[in-house]
C-alpha cells in the first residue's frame, strides 16, 4: 500500500511517500523545504504559509519523482491536520484535498504529534515505549493505555524547542536554533546557576528562559551549556519518575529536540538505572517531515475509511491525548 503524507504545521513543508507491507513501512521519498525567518526573528505564520504555497508544487513533484510513483499509484493521501499554525496547516490541507478530489484518492487527517510517535516506533522498532516528545510545539511524556496516548508530564508554559529557539534568537540566530545552541554548549563546562522548576511531573521553562537571557552577556557558551544542563536535567527527572511509575521497559525520544546528543546522554543514563531500552528517532527523521504523516495515515487506513473531503478540517489546537488510536 502506498501513501502520500503532507506536513505543513510550522516551518517545514514536506511530502513523503511510504510503502506499507503488513506491519512494515519503507520510506520511498521524503522531500522538505524549510521556511527560514531572518536572523533573530521567529516564525511569522503568514510568511511561512506563503513559503509553503510557493514551494508545495515543486516539493510534491520531487517527492513523486524520487519515489518513482505516479499520483494514480497512490492508495491514500494524509495531511497534518493539527496542531499547528493555522495558515500553514491550511496550505497542507489544500494540497491534500485538491489531490484527493482530483484523483479520487481517500484522504486522512493526521495528528502531527501522533505522527512523531508512530514514525519513531517504526524506525526504531520500539514496541511499547514511554515516549518523550520534545519539539518546538510539544514537550510531553506519554504512555499508551486503552487506545489513547496518556500524558504523564508536560510543560506548563513554553516547550523545550521554544526555549532553545528563543535563547538562540535573542543571541541573534535564525530559528530553529537547537543545533547552534548544542554546538555552543559543547564548548563550555562552566555551569552558571539557573532556575530549575519541576512541579509534580510537569516542567516550567519560562523562568529559565528569562534567567538565561540575563547571563548571555557574561558569556554565550556558558549560558548555552548551563541552559542545556538545567533544562535537560528537569526533563530527565520527570521522565525518570514516569518510567518508575509506568514500569515501561522502553523509552523513545521523538521530535526535533531528540536530535540533541546531550539530551540523549542524560536519558540513556536514566534508562541504565531502570534497566530500560533506549530508543531515539534517527536525526534525519526527528524533526517535522512528511514521513510521520504518511506512516500514521497508512496505519489509520488499516482500520478505517478515509474522511469525506467536506469534513477534512484543520485544528490549530488538537491535543494528542484526545485522539483515539484504533489500529
Amino acid at each position, binding site marked *: 500500500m502506498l501513501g502520500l503524507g503532507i506536513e505543513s504545521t510550522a516551518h517545514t513543508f514536506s511530502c513523503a511517500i511510504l510503502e506499507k507491507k503488513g506491519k512494515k513501512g519503507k520510506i520511498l521519498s521524503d522531500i522538505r523545504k524549510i521556511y527560514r525567518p531572518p536572523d533573530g526573528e521567529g516564525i511569522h505564520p503568514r510568511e511561512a*504559509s*506563503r513559503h509553503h*504555497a510557493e514551494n*508545495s*508544487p515543486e516539493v*510534491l513533484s520531487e517527492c513523486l519523482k524520487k519515489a518513482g510513483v505516479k499520483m494514480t499509484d497512490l492508495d491514500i493521501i494524509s495531511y497534518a491536520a493539527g496542531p499547528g499554525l493555522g*495558515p500553514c496547516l*491550511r*496550505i497542507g*490541507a*489544500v*494540497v491534500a*484535498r*485538491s*489531490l484527493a*478530489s*482530483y484523483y479520487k484518492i481517500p484522504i486522512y487527517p493526521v495528528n502531527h504529534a501522533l505522527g512523531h510517535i508512530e514514525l519513531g516506533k517504526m524506525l526504531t522498532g520500539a514496541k511499547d515505549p514511554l515516549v518523550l516528545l520534545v519539539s518546538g510545539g510539544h514537550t510531553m511524556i506519554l504512555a499508551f493505555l486503552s487506545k489513547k496516548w496518556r500524558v504523564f508530564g508536560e510543560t506548563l508554559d513554553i516547550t523545550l524547542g521554544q526555549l532553545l529557539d528563543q535563547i538562540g534568537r535573542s543571541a541573534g540566530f535564525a530559528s530553529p536554533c537547537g543545533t547552534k545552541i548544542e554546538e555552543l554548549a559543547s564548548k563550555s563546562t562552566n555551569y552558571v546557576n539557573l532556575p530549575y522548576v519541576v512541579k509534580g511531573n510537569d516542567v516550567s521553562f519560562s523562568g529559565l528562559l528569562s534567567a538565561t537571557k540575563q547571563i548571555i552577556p557574561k558569556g554565550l557558551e556558558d549560558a548555552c551549556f548551563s541552559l542545556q544542563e538545567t533544562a535537560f536535567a528537569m526533563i530527565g527527572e520527570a521522565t525518570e519518575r514516569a518510567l518508575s511509575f509506568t514500569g515501561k521497559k522502553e523509552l523513545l525520544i521523538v521530535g526535533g529536540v531528540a536530535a540533541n546528543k546531550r539530551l540523549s546522554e542524560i536519558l540513556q543514563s536514566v534508562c541504565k538505572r531502570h534497566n530500560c531500552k533506549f530508543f531515539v528517532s534517527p536525526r534525519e527523521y526527528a524533526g517535522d517531515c512528511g514521513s510521520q504523516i504518511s506512516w500514521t495515515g497508512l496505519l489509520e487506513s488499516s482500520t478505517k475509511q478515509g474522511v469525506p*473531503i*467536506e*469534513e*477534512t*478540517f*484543520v485544528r490549530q489546537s488538537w491535543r494528542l491525548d484526545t485522539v483515539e488510536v484504533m489500529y
Partner: protein
Amino acid sequence: MSLECKVQVFLNNLTPQKSNAIRKALTPDNINFPENLSMEIENVNNSLVFTFQGKGNIRTLISTIDEVLEHAQVVLRVIG
C-alpha cells in the same frame, strides 16, 4: 459610517474537474466566517466565481481574498 464592500473574482477557462477540485479544496477552511464577512463559490459556465462581502475592517476582507486566491493557485499548480 463603516465601509461595505462586495468583491467578485472570476477564474476563467477551467474544466469542470479543476473547478470541482478548487471548490472542494477551499470549502472546509471557509466556513463559520465572522458576522461581517462572507464568501460564496459558484460555477458559472467555464468560470469559478468567488463572491466576497465584507463590512467594517477592510483589511480582514483583503486578507481573506489574498489567502483564498493563493489557495486556488496552489490547487491549480499541484493538479497541473
